[in-house]
């Protein structure tokens, strides 16, 4: 049963092959059945494999299943195999990816119904799921990179899915180029691993790294830093986050699956997978935390200023991945993965609800133009409320458990290094982030579902597939966190126990009960305060916000937040504009002109002078002499036979005379 694991990525890949080769001949129904069917087969298989892993390998340390199919590359020391490594980390990723992908595929059956690229859409989505599973299950870096680039390519294809709109193509290129930039660093890291440790097997490389590289050695720091850059690009963290808000140009299910739930968390997965390496490089690990903290704050503030519902969620995604980075920065891998899981549920849910709402409003995405939709769209209302509560970290929802865990881990970091005084700051950022998260998501919530109704949704009832996906995701957003209860509430540690079979669990050493309780109370207080503030500021007294934004600093702040703190403009100014300027200048070929001026023109000038051709005179003389000789000698050959004989006779006489007399 465990050996069936190869089918998990291969089935969606076959779905992709069928849809891309025969998509044009299949009916829409068949396309939907193939597209969603392959994912459901994959989900079921993934679940079965995960269950077998837990049953068969229980008690083994580390609890892992490893299988190799064939050798992909074998050149002397370089040996790359096609093989999968299934341990707790990859199991969690695999199960969440397939499950969320299944629900989003079900949703897409309805959402994409009227689109002309129906089969193309499902083909790309299937390819994406296959690549993502390869990424997650790969046992070596090259296969991981294959999946990594595969999801990047699918992301590009799906952002630019509606390619007739030039802006979508630009957004796709932006995402592609920025992630590629980071991938270059990732590839360099892989090459360094190979040149130093002589293996590309992830587990083996980690084992050797721990033995070979001393704590804080430069090699470990360099490799970890390169991997961090790769992870930052993929996970849209500062300073490479600008592509994600633009990536919302793609269809909503794409945003939900790729740019919220799965692909953008690949960076988190990478760091979690390589966490032994990051522990060898404390500087880099601290940087991970700082980047996470900064990102979560800045993008939460950006989310507060956005008006496009999908952009709010995009910034929210960046911010939530910031929380995961924060957890990874303090070495709390389990907490990061737990937040990845709950985030996948509630963020996918929020995206899908926004998609469902705007679908009924003639594809309106501006929350300012929505309002009072709670009676017309009850399903959307309730599911969005659950998703928003989970995102904000409302008690007992999934987001509460994961975020709380992260905050506790950051708080309870043992001191000792210089950096640690920073840990309190990181914790402060996380706490402020909790408040901001509640504020921005409930701002969107109130704008969409409360207030004056300005638009009338069409009277289409949602299909069963769409409803089921929303309801199931809402259920998981509500209850998905119940596998892990903090020490203050029952102390259930199913999730951390499971992850602990692969990675030594990083639990705060001493549980100070009161301290933890206080922190939880504080974060719950902040959540409630955030929700209440959102209610006050955006629903009850909208004039207040207007008054603040009306002032000059308020206006500037809002504009900066709206534009994502000017990162795009900075890159535009630093990279894009100089590049365009260079292109414009070289349109007129300055180098070529220089050569013309320096070399071609003098030559032409010399040729002008040499028109009279004094050199040629000499050759002309040769020609004249030759011609004269020719004319002289020509007379001898006159064709008279007797003349020839006479000459010959005379010649013979002369020769004989010379022989005799000289």
């Amino acid at each position, binding site marked *: 049963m465990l050996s069936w694991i190869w089918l998990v990525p291969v089935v969606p890949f076959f779905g992709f092959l069928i849809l891309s080769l025969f998509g044009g001949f299949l009916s829409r129904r068949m396309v939907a059945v193939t597209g969603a069917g392959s994912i459901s087969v994959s989900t079921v298989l993934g679940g079965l494999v995960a269950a077998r892993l837990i049953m068969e390998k229980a008690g083994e340390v580390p609890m892992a299943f490893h299988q190799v199919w064939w050798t992909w590359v074998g050149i002397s020391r370089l040996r790359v195999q096609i093989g999968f490594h299934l341990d707790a980390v990859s199991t969690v990723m695999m199960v969440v990816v397939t499950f969320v992908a299944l629900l989003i595929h079900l949703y897409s059956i309805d959402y994409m119904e009227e689109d002309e690229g129906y089969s193309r859409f499902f083909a790309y989505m299937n390819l994406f799921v296959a690549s993502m599973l390869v990424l997650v299950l790969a046992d070596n870096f090259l296969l991981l990179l294959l999946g990594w680039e595969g999801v990047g390519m699918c992301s590009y294809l799906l952002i630019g899915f509606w390619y007739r709109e030039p802006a979508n193509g630009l957004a796709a290129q932006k995402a592609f180029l920025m992630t590629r930039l980071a991938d270059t660093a990732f590839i360099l890291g892989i090459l360094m691993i190979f040149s130093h440790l002589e293996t590309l097997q992830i587990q083996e490389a980690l084992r050797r790294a721990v033995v070979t590289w001393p704590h804080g050695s430069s090699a470990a720091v360099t490799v970890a830093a390169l991997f961090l850059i790769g992870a930052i690009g993929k996970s849209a963290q500062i300073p490479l986050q600008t592509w994600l808000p633009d990536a919302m140009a793609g269809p909503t299910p794409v945003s939900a699956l790729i740019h919220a739930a799965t692909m953008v968390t690949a960076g988190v997965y990478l760091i979690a997978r390589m966490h032994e390496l990051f522990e060898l490089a404390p500087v880099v690990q601290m940087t991970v935390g700082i980047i996470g903290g900064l990102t979560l704050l800045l993008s939460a503030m950006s989310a507060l200023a956005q008006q496009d519902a999908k952009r709010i969620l995009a910034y929210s995604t960046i911010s939530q991945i910031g929380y995961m980075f924060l957890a990874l920065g303090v070495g709390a891998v389990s907490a990061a993965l737990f937040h990845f899981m709950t985030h996948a549920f509630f963020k996918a849910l929020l995206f899908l609800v926004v998609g469902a709402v705007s679908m009924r409003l003639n594809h309106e995405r501006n929350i300012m133009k929505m309002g009072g939709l709670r009676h017309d769209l009850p399903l959307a209302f309730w599911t969005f409320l659950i998703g928003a509560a989970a995102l904000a970290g409302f008690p007992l929802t999934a987001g509460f458990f994961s975020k709380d865990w992260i905050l506790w881990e950051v708080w309870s970091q043992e001191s000792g290094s210089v950096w640690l005084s920073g840990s309190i700051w990181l914790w402060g950022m996380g706490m402020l982030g909790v408040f901001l998260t509640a504020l921005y998501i409930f701002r969107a919530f109130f704008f969409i579902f409360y207030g004056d109704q300005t638009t009338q949704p069409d009277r289409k009832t949602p299909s069963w597939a769409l409803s089921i996906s929303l309801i199931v995701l809402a259920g998981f957003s509500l209850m998905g966190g119940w596998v892990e209860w903090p020490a203050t509430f029952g102390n259930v540690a199913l999730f951390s126990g499971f992850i602990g079979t692969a990675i030594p669990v990083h639990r705060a050493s001493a549980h100070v009960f009161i301290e933890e309780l206080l922190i939880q109370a504080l974060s719950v207080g902040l959540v409630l305060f955030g929700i209440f503030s959102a209610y006050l500021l955006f629903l009850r007294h909208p004039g207040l916000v207007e008054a603040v934004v009306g002032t000059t600093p308020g206006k500037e702040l809002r504009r900066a937040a709206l534009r994502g703190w000017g990162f795009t403009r900075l890159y535009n100014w630093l990279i894009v504009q100089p590049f365009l300027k260079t292109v414009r200048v070289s349109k007129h070929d300055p180098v070529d002109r220089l050569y013309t001026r320096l070399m071609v023109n003098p030559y032409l000038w010399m040729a002008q002078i040499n028109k009279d051709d004094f050199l040629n005179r000499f050759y002309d003389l040769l020609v004249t002499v030759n011609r004269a000789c020719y004319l002289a*000698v*020509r*007379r*001898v*050959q*006159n*064709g*008279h*036979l*007797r003349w020839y*004989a*006479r000459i010959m*006779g005379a010649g013979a006489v002369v020769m004989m005379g010379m022989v005799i007399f000289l």
Partner: protein
Amino acid sequence: MNHVPLEQGLLLAGMLFVLGLAGLLARRNMIFLLMSLEIMLNAAGLAFVVAGAKWSAPDGQVMFLFVLTMASAEVAVGLALILQLYHHFHTLNADSVSTMRG
């Protein structure tokens, strides 16, 4: 055996050669030109034979056989050329066959 002195033999050969050369320069008919050539060749052959007899070596007679062979081959080719020329120009005058100017 009655020996012919070398001087007389060579003199005869020289006279024959000069006769042939004179015929070659004076005549215009190509047949006669060919015949004059034969005379010159035979004069040369005679000089070989005479010289061979003087030193009682067979080389001179061997050389004469070569000369005869060459002469017959030359006559064959020459007569064939003359025939062709006659077909073409309808004359055997060597001077009027001079269209091949340099």
